[in-house]
């Protein structure tokens, strides 16, 4: 039992906090959001220079051999600064599929280009009907003489319009909701037959609806077993959920700090509003919600190394529930305690609330995960 960061982890935290402290305040962020695609290539290069894009990859692949704790440190920092750049889809999800299921050739082609910031990824998973079920896939990949032909539609693909590579979940066999018969494909975003409709999202990111019409790829596009990829998908999505939990803790931490700061400076009735007990107690409850969330983010991070898949899944689900609930409370109350100013686009607090809200609705909301836990047996 040890909650401390190692010396190396502490340095990592200092390094990313330092970078974002200098280059990513709320005003600078407003500039990045106006760049092409809605995020900054400059920042992306700096993340690459500091080795952060290579963090989870093995030394032998040119990475730094970081584990789940290292990802937690980075994601928390990205959350605190409300970072727009596609770290999650590229490093956590794209990198995750390559690390957990990629062939030697796939790794050799794609990992260096992630590490050096040359390409970004997007995860094309959601379908109109699938909601949060990872096995519910209608997009098909059918074998032909040279490889595969992909047809179907994917929605709200974050970073979808900018990405160089799409990771697509497809059905290669069986009925739409079967647990087996799923595959994961690496598809160049410029492939013939792909069309995208791009739009901004509520939290300032960009996503696209992507249509695949007779898109042809070779066998080199297949990650892992083309007919039994659900375990791999679940594994990587659990890692993504865990990363989102850490990002959310960063967001909540910063929201509470910002709100408490505001309570100290904003005066009404001739005194700082932080001197009113009803508001103090609300802030105290936000602190409790934050620490419960932080504990569960750590729990999910630890679960990444569980051998038992069900145990891992339950731990991550529980974390997602806690993060959803804490995030909603802290997000909403941050706005309330800011009063009218919290309602404006100009103030940063509302943007934290919006990102927290979108995290709750990504890869299963708290209701969805609560149901999984209640059906899956005991947590205690």
């Amino acid at each position, binding site marked *: 039992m040890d909650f401390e960061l190692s010396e190396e982890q502490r340095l990592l935290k200092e390094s990313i906090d330092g970078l974002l402290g200098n280059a990513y305040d709320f005003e600078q962020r407003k500039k990045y959001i106006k760049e092409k695609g809605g995020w900054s290539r400059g920042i992306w290069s700096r993340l690459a220079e500091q080795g952060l894009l290579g963090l989870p990859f093995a030394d032998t692949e040119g990475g730094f051999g970081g584990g789940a704790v290292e990802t937690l440190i980075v994601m928390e920092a990205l959350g605190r600064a409300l970072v727009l750049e596609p770290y999650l889809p590229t490093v956590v999800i794209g990198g995750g599929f390559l690390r957990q299921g990629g062939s030697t050739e796939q790794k050799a082609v794609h990992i260096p280009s992630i590490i050096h910031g040359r390409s970004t990824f997007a995860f094309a998973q959601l379908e109109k009907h699938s909601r949060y079920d990872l096995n519910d896939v209608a997009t098909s990949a059918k074998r032909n003489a040279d490889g595969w032909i992909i047809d179907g539609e994917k929605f709200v693909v974050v970073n979808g319009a900018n990405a160089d590579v799409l990771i697509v979940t497809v059905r290669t066999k069986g009925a739409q909701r079967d647990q087996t018969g799923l595959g994961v494909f690496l598809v160049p975003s410029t492939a013939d037959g792909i069309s995208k409709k791009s739009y901004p999202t509520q939290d300032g990111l960009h996503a696209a609806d992507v249509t695949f019409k007779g898109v042809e790829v070779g066998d080199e596009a297949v990650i892992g077993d083309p007919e039994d990829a659900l375990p791999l998908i679940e594994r990587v999505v659990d890692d993504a959920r865990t990363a989102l939990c850490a990002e959310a803790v960063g967001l909540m931490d910063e929201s509470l700090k910002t709100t408490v700061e505001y309570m100290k400076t904003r005066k009404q009735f001739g005194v700082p509003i932080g001197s009113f007990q009803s508001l103090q107690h609300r802030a105290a409850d936000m602190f409790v919600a934050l620490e419960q969330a932080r504990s569960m983010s750590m729990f999910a991070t630890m679960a990444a190394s569980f051998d038992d898949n069900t145990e891992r899944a339950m731990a991550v689900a529980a974390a997602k529930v806690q993060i959803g609930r804490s995030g909603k409370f802290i997000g909403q109350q941050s706005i309330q305690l800011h009063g009218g100013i919290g309602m404006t686009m100009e103030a940063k607090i509302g943007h934290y609330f919006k990102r927290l809200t979108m995290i709750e609705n990504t890869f299963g909301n708290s209701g969805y995960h*609560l149901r999984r836990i209640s059906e899956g047996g005991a947590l205690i």
Partner: protein
Amino acid sequence: MDLAFTKEEQGFREEVRKFLRSNVWPELRRKMVEGRHVSKEDMVAWWRILNEQGWAVSHWPKKYGGTGWSPVQHYIFREEIQMYPAPTPLAFGVGMVGPVIYTFGSEAQKRYYLPRIANVDDWWCQGFSEPGAGSDLASLKMKAERKGNKWIISGQKTWTTLAQYADMIFCLCRTDPTAKKQSGISFILVDMRSKGITVRPIQTIDGGHEVNEVFFDDVEAPVENLVGEENKGWEYAKFLLGNERTGIARVGVSKERIRRIRKLASKIGSSGRPLIEDPALREKLAACEVELKALELTQLRVVANEGRHGKGVPDPASSMLKIKGSEIQQTTTELLMELIGPFAAPYDEHPESSCETIDFAAQIAPSYFNNRKVSIYGGSDEIQRNIITRAVLGL
């Protein structure tokens, strides 16, 4: 960062479990599970077994009989006792007055009282709250005047838990009526058999008799029963209340109750099927489990951080444990109430026996009523929020 228990810690847990299995007699365990009245004799007998094992005052310094365990071991020990379940050591002696005596008391006090606390030769109770001094404890009025080699004490204490069993009481008394609120308070030990002490029971809404009023009418106590310095009692009280908050989350108790909920829910039927198959109930239970899991880890984080705030200075984060711990304890008793439904109604005036209409419903309603106390005692939830406001948020 490694949140798994080490092999040694797991081995220690096994050792504690084995000890509980071979030393807690089944009848005592049953009473604990069902929330029935446990007699003074039963509790003392059990605590003396703990003392023989050397575990009665586990967290005290080694030279006073402590074990020298790590914070995590203390956590495991407490959790295992709560989960078994067996009575945890008497807080008023082991958790409260003991540490005050070995930290601030005289050599003579340490020599005399500490071994007696460990063996429960004296049953201690706490004389802090007064009718006019609840959350605003420092406004207490009970007066102690020094006359020759005696203190003469007059006033009233209230909410005195198990005073009916007590041999000794530790009191906060006003010794300097001219000083400002927090100054002028002294920490004095009083024999409960002294002339002028009257104990009047208070019946709580569950029908039980845990708490009392204690009246002091010119009660005499020897001057050497003052702990530490005169008029410094508030400092010792703060130290004591800080100790009280560690472990107040009672994670083990809630874990045990969740197991009981699950067991009962498979036994009790509704609309022709066991309640455990009701998705709405399962989701409520799951939500409670998530909160409890989070609390357990939060508690471990506070435990791991112990000592970092300076010796004897409580981590303000422990206020959070009190708030969440109370909420979850109350939720678990609510869930039990929901389970037994109409069989919550029968009221048993003699809870030692077992004459309920439906045996499994035993003591569930009283326990639900009784557990409203946990967000009030030991510094109410609102006081804990004040502490967080000041000490953590700096507002």
